[in-house]
């Protein structure tokens, strides 16, 4: 008891000492900085509603928020966000932002499409942007990403780099934003096989039967590790997880395999997003949510809002492959030059991707 009191007294003294600082006097510079920030950034308010994944989902909510913050640091807009704990809050969150007077409301995720559209129909003078869903003219701009194109390159690279002739992929859930990656990956491998008369197999997904491996989670790393271990024991030497945080478990498994398995990351550049696994990451298939959100907010801020659908492609940089980083020297030059040709082929239309999960805008 005495000891507790002593510790408590010590803590109080510590707190008091910490509170003994002097009041900062340089308020003028602070005020002017705030004022200048307010003058350029303060006029246009852009507000974002997350889906139930929350702001720290390491996936599209985080990416969209990063894009919003970029618009603020560019001085184009003042941004804020509201999180949805459950689906029941989608509608009320959007209406809270309406009454707050946000100039642009950014909603994230296809599951918010109906709530966004319903609100847009009533409030015809309000502008909206939605990530991962289509445009609804005149006032909802859809930002979608044809990641099948980027994943096609990933599949081609994996097929060319694989020594064992087996590559693997798995998804978080069997839903379009996930399977579009897996379709592209699968088609990329098939295309490599047809070009090189090889028989590289894809474990974990088949576009024609639409059957494959799914973790049923975007967060459970153990499931990702188990799936990757299963693929490893079946002889796969490259894994492409399309499952957000679950995929980190697959990277851990790859790292423990001592070079028997490498990985391709998804959505963002894994070299910076998960640097602890940089030594097993051949590349990443990118989805340019942040840039698209930033552009959409800045366009709206400068009075150029439009409801034209945006579809991120290889051509406009909305998807693609990340740099090879540690694998720069390991990938044969012939393979990288083929990849450049394949990319041009997809852009020019001479290579067509058949996946039905591709967004059309």
């Amino acid at each position, binding site marked *: 008891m005495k000891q507790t009191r002593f510790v408590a007294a010590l803590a109080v003294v510590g707190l008091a000492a910490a*509170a003994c600082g002097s009041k900062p006097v340089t308020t003028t510079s602070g005020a002017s900085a705030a004022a200048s920030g307010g003058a350029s950034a303060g006029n246009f308010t852009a507000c974002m509603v997350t889906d139930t994944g929350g702001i720290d989902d390491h996936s599209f909510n985080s990416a969209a928020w990063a894009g919003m913050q970029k618009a603020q640091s560019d001085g184009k807009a003042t941004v804020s966000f509201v999180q949805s704990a459950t*689906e029941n809050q989608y509608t009320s969150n959007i209406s809270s932002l309406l009454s707050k007077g946000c100039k642009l409301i950014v909603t994230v995720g296809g599951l918010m499409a109906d709530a966004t559209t319903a609100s847009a129909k009533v409030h015809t003078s309000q502008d909206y942007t939605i990530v991962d869903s289509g445009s609804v003219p005149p006032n909802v701009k859809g930002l979608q990403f044809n990641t099948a194109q980027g994943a096609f390159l990933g599949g081609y690279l994996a097929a060319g780099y694989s020594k064992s002739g087996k590559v693997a992929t798995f998804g978080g859930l069997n839903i379009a934003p996930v399977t579009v990656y897996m379709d592209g990956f699968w088609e990329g491998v098939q295309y490599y096989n047809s070009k090189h008369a090889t028989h590289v197999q894809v474990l974990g997904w088949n576009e024609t039967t639409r059957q494959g491996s799914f973790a049923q989670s975007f967060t459970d790393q153990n499931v990702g590790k188990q799936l990757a271990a299963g693929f490893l024991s079946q002889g796969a030497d490259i894994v492409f997880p399309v499952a957000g945080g679950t995929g980190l478990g697959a990277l851990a498994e790859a790292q423990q395999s001592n070079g028997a398995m490498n990985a391709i990351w998804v959505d963002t550049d894994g070299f910076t997003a998960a640097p602890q696994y940089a030594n097993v990451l051949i590349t990443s298939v990118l989805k340019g949510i942040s840039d698209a959100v930033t552009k959409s907010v800045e366009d709206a801020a400068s009075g150029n809002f439009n409801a034209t659908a945006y579809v991120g492609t290889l051509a406009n940089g909305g998807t693609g492959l990340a740099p090879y980083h540690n694998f720069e020297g390991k990938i044969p030059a012939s393979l990288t030059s083929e990849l450049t040709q394949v990319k041009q082929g997809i852009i020019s239309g001479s290579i067509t991707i058949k996946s039905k999960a591709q967004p059309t805008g």
Partner: protein
Amino acid sequence: MTTQSTEQETPAPEPFGGLGQAARNVFNAENSLLVTFLAVVLALVAGAILMVVSDTETLNRAGYFFSAPGDFFSAAWHDVSSGYTALFKGAIFDPATVNGTPTQFFGPITNTLLMATPLIFGGLAVSLAFRGGLFNIGGQGQLIAGAIFAAYVSFAWHLPPGLHVLVAVLAGAFGGMLYGALVGWLKAWRGAHEVIVTIMLNYVAFYFLGYLLNANGFHNPDKLGQAVSKPADADARLPRLFGDSVNTDVGLVIAVAATIATAWLLHRSKLGFEVRALGINPRAARIAGINVGRTQVLAMALSGLLFGLVGVTQTLGTTNPNNNSLSPNIDAGLGFDAITVALLGRNRPWGIVAAALLFGAFNAGASVMQASAGLPVDIVNVVKAIIVIFVAAPQIVREIFRLRTQRAPLATGGKA
């Protein structure tokens, strides 16, 4: 998010016999109305501290507290007052809308009622089973079952207006009832512990729903690759009470009716008497000639029925964000929130209505608090969780406020 705070309700790992008993102790703690009220006050104080701590600007001012204490206190006061003002504006009434449209004027209070409606059903469901000595944590599964039945009838059948919505509501109630009765049957005739069974059946329902939403017949072909069912027919949706501009639907009326029915059932009917007798002492009830197995099945069936109605409002009500169709997260954590509401409402039907309104107000206010005061939504979840902790451990509240122990009459409460 919300489920996390309520998962603490699941009793600590003990031998199976202890599970139900632990829960029973929590629910039966002699909570006077005063203690409940003080628990809310304490939680709001804790929330206020969090609001201050989460504002880095205010914390910086604490760094020079002794040279200018006023700075810190004014900033702290501003944090707390703007936070709770926003909560009030989002949940009850926003003075700025005095001359606004009915939608704006009634917006906050109708949001509260909308959020409270499923909590009323759920709270009643948990308490009904609990009064019979059964701890129903299978709300998630039962409400999903109800939602599946209601949704199927609402889009696959085409009935005359009026009749369609009625049949859809009944179908949802029936679905939840079946799923609840299954638990009762396993408990009564097969000796399975209802806590284990209901948890497992939650998974069964959740993954079955996931399967259905990708299956032909349920999946909406217009939403390629999205796990969403076909939308309900227009005449199967719950009608609005006061036209399109005011955000309330018939679900609220059904909730009030369900409250009256549950209160009558528990205190005025023979079945209710049997349920209560069973909850107090199963052995005595058996000796007194009550058919224990039958009563358990009925209690679970009725509890499931009430959860089925949560499924109905989630699917066919105005809160549904997906154009009145099923989605994988249709349960919205309500199966677990219902347990906290029942606890806070002290298992009395009208107490549950009050608790549901309080939590509904928190949920409705949270979005405005986030939007206009810039405070994280988690603060509201923490406040809710703290309320539950204090209600579950009333002794803490008594000690903080130096109330007389246990049986002190209400009126002489605070002598601090």
